[in-house]
């Protein structure tokens, strides 16, 4: 099983190390874990969106011969665990006590001998509900006639969560007042769901003798979860071990702590046996962290010659029944204020108001990069709206207004300092690959024949890699990440990192980072991740932060090792450390300045470091190092995307014919993996733009609770992707990398929607909300487009 290409040491096209187990079906996912005596848990969920709980009768369930225990809100209350803190300074019910506040909310937990009996047990619990009217429309959630959802919060008299603003309102108003052209557009980024192929779950094993809790869990942030359990459960943090084994996709869905995990933990404490809880797909779609649900009113100001001068937006953010979004604590709307995009504006202002509704809690997931998807969608749609108003080509309008390379580092009008960028270069590359002028000619010909073809552009700048401790924390935990590197006597190494993989290939890319620094081949570096007992503290994998933060930590810890190695090399070669220079080779080694024949590799040094070579004063034996990296800033990947669609005029079905993506993620560790990340994100975009939607009816019943209703693209709906890249390194990152994980999910939806709107120009369509299903496109063609419910 070898490729004919040379295997790189360091950055380059390296096949993944982790594939070996997955292609054999030997991955170890949470539901693959079986422990002796293990019991199975199942959650009873509310069938209604808003109701008082009158009574819960679990007697029939307890009488089932295979049911071992039933937990209700009352049982959790006795342990002070009926409520738990969320990552947004709110609280969330673990098992409902007074009321249920969304359809699918957790009401009871059945623990049984096997999963079938647990499911049977659910049907034997009798709950009486007293229905209350449901708040389903975020736009009217603050009206005085709406019921108060969070009456559990002392003094709460409405459904308001927060107000937040950014930018200069006065300067923006002035810019709009004097603008020659102003375009306004309402748009919705609908509620969607990350829906990883593996649902969420946990196996909790509490050892009554030692008092240690081991929790295997689908967690993107095992250390943060451990701290949260310590705070919530009163279990000492050093007696909790959280292990994220192989995870079948995260996409932000596996960042929050879910009630099911806590129920499994309490279940294990109560029964003295391991308890497994894995949710089914309807539970995943109905109750776990959704994404988006931003109702936006945008406005863009400019001059007739095509200068964009200002941007403003008002947002109503639907946070569901509990504000369980996971974002840095000072940023209730995440990094939404990066909505100024890739353009040099005179002024900008945004205001975001968060509200409660009777829907599932969450809001930050699905590669949102903390609301950057919403921000980029807003600005890229508004720019297209302005282009339309001006009669200007959307590529030309963007090129005219891009931040220029010499303006970096660039401070945006909402306070972000973009590290580096060369937007025009990426844009022109994408236009060339697409054959843009030829496409426009083709479009004109097709229009003459009554055919509907659209070309859409999406250009994005993200702010990822959270983040500097002084600005960014989640639940008070700073967003720094650690790395620990041990080099063994035979020159092999083990790297322990804070982030862990849900498919991104960390076992390969992080080995490549160390390989690049030390010249140890990646196959000789074991990357350890996901286990709080064996990895350094860090806030987890999301927001594209693995490469910018943990990747930086890995590079810096390798450099620490390299410096220790220098000391050992100086002793081995009997020269002063200052007389040594590092050469990348290959083979990489410390060698004597002016005498390159004299040199030693890390492998040589390792044996000496552990051996008996006399080391200089103050230099400890061994070749290990640790570091914690506090990033000085976020990083700002960017990209130029172009989408070509064809729409059937009779049925209004949209087909994505081509998609061109030029990405700049700074220094590229592994092009194979980068390309894969981009492909996956582009598919997300097709999904959201054309078919994905979590909808509710007026009673708060969730209409997207299965994969029959929540549609995810198959291989048929997506084209063969055309990808390319530019490299604009980040000046502050140890090796100039920026991160790529969410770029394509961020940049593709506006490109596709812009293409659909472009295709429908003959019908005078100015905007259409996602998802652009055939029915909704047809409505737009008849001038009757509305946001989805």
């Amino acid at each position, binding site marked *: 099983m070898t490729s004919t290409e040379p295997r790189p040491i360091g950055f380059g096209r390296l096949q993944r190390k982790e594939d070996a187990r997955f292609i054999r079906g030997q991955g170890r996912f949470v539901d693959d874990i079986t422990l002796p005596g293990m019991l199975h848990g199942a959650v009873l969920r509310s069938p209604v969106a808003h109701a008082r709980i009158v009574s819960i009768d679990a007697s029939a369930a307890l009488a089932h011969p295979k049911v071992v225990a039933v937990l209700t809100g009352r049982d959790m209350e006795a342990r002070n665990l009926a409520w738990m803190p969320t990552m947004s300074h709110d609280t969330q019910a673990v098992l409902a006590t007074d009321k249920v506040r969304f359809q699918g909310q957790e009401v009871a937990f059945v623990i049984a001998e096997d*999963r*079938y009996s647990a*499911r*049977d047990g659910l*049907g034997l619990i009798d709950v009486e509900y007293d229905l209350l009217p449901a708040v389903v429309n975020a736009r009217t959630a603050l009206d005085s006639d709406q019921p108060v959802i969070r009456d559990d919060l002392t003094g709460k008299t409405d459904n308001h969560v927060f107000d937040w603003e950014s930018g200069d309102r006065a300067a923006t108003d002035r810019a709009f007042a004097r603008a020659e052209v102003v375009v306004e557009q309402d748009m919705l980024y609908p509620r969607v769901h990350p829906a990883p192929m593996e649902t969420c779950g946990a196996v909790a094993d509490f050892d009554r003798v030692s008092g240690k809790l081991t929790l295997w869990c689908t967690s993107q942030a095992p250390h943060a979860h451990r701290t949260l359990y310590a705070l919530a459960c009163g279990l000492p943090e050093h007696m909790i071990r959280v292990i994220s084994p192989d995870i079948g996709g995260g996409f932000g869905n596996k960042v929050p702590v879910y009630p099911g995990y806590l129920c499994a933990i309490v279940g294990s404490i109560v029964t003295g046996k391991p308890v497994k809880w894995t949710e*089914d*797909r*309807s539970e995943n779609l109905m109750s776990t962290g959704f994404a988006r649900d931003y109702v936006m009113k945008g406005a863009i100001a400019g001059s007739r010659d095509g200068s964009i001068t200002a941007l403003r937006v008002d947002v109503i953010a639907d946070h569901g029944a509990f504000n369980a979004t996971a974002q840095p604590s000072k940023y209730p709307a995440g990094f939404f204020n990066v909505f100024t995009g890739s353009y040099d504006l005179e002024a900008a202002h945004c205001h975001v108001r968060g509200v409660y509704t009777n829907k599932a809690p969450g809001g930050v997931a699905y590669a949102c990069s903390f609301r950057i998807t919403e921000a980029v969608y807003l600005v890229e749609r508004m720019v297209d709206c302005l282009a339309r108003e001006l009669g200007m080509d959307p590529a030309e309008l963007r090129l005219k207004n891009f931040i220029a390379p010499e303006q970096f580092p660039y401070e945006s009008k909402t306070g972000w300092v973009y590290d580096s960028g060369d937007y025009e270069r990426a844009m022109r590359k994408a236009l060339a690959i697409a054959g843009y002028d030829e496409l426009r000619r083709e479009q004109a010909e097709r229009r003459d024949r009554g055919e509907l073809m659209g070309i859409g552009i999406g250009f994005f700048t993200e702010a990822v890699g959270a983040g500097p401790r002084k600005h960014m924390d989640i639940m008070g935990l700073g967003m720094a990440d650690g790395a620990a590197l041990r080099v063994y006597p035979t020159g092999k190494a083990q790297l322990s990192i804070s982030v862990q993989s849900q498919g991104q290939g960390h076992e390969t890319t992080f080995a490549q980072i160390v390989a690049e620094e030390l010249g140890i081949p990646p196959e000789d570096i074991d990357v350890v991740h996901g286990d709080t007992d064996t990895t350094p503290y860090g806030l987890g994998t999301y927001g594209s932060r693995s490469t910018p933060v943990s990747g930086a930590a890995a590079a810096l810890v390798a450099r620490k090792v390299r410096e220790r190695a220098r000391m050992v090399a100086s002793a081995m070669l009997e020269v002063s450390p200052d007389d040594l220079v590092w050469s990348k080779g290959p083979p990489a080694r410390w060698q004597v300045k002016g005498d390159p024949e004299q040199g030693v590799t890390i492998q040589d040094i390792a044996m000496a470091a552990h051996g008996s070579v006399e080391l200089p004063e103050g230099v400890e034996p061994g070749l290990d190092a640790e570091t914690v990296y506090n990033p000085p800033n976020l990083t700002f990947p960017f990209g130029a995307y172009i989408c070509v669609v064809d729409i059937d005029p*009779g*049925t*209004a*079905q949209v087909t994505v014919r081509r998609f061109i993506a030029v990405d700049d993620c700074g220094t590229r560790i592994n092009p194979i993996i980068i390309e894969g990340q981009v492909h996956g994100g582009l598919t997300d975009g097709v999904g959201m733009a*054309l*078919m994905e*939607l979590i*909808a509710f009816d007026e009673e708060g019943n969730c*209409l*997207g609770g299965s994969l*029959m*209703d929540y*549609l995810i*693209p*198959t291989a*048929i*709906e997506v084209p063969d992707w055309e990808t390319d890249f530019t490299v604009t390194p980040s000046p502050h990152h140890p090796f100039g990398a920026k991160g790529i994980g969410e770029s394509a999910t961020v940049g593709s939806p506006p490109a596709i929607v812009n293409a659909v709107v472009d295709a429908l120009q003959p019908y005078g369509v100015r905007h259409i909300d996602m998802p652009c*299903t*055939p*029915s909704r496109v*047809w*409505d737009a063609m008849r001038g009757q487009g509305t946001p989805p419910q």
Partner: protein
Amino acid sequence: MQVPAPFEYERATSVDHALDLLAVLGPGARLLAGGHSLLPMMKLRLATPEYLIDLDGLAGELGYIREPGPDGLGDEIRIGALTRHRELLESELLAQRLAIFPDAERVIADPVVRNRGTIGGALCQADPSEDLSAVCAAVGARMVIRGLEGQRVVDMREFHRGPYRTAVDDGEMLVEIRVPIRPAGGSAYEKVGRRAGDWAVAAAAASVSIADGAIEQAGIALTAVGAGVTSAEAEQLLVGRAPSEGLFGAAAELAAAACSPVSDQRGSADYKRHAAGELARRALRRATGRALRAQA
């Protein structure tokens, strides 16, 4: 993943055995064909039969596509009720004589589900959005239902009673579908979904036969839009007339006007009605093209 409630299980070894079991076990028993309509409902506990009679062993006996032959079967293609979707999709015979079947099978569910699901299972489940009911109605198929007392043959109008309801009584099972073959006949199916494998937002089935330059017989049926078993008014408009785009359009309009779609997440009622008409027109056009080529 959700799992069914407990039930007792029997394996049928023949059609007669299955009928005996149905008689003995009573209305609490359901037949399990390909399982891809029934088992999902059982997993969601929307169906909770006490007994399942597994027809897996009958796949040989009831899985066939027989062309009309000299042994007195007449001008009919006969399809066993347990014929899998995949077999219908890949049948050379159907591709030549009843292309509406591969048209529809290409867009029913997905390739993996098609390995197990059966035509009988789909027709008897009678989901308002499933495709083969309209296909069978358009081609004038007749359903062979067998019980302990014997066998009866009903046409689709009698067979298909509405959502989830068919003429198959307790104690009976569908065993065969018989489709008439006309000399210069052509048929086609057109469907719109939000994505590959999606249930129909709307779909149209059309079947025509041409004689002396005129449409001799026509069948039109719509899927998922609250239409009658067939669009009778539209069919009547076509008979005796020379085929033309204008005629297809007029017939399609009648068919669309006569259906009662419901607004839901798949689409608005207005859209579904529009799509039904558009698809009926396309199906008629394609069916006619095939009929004319068959004539040649």
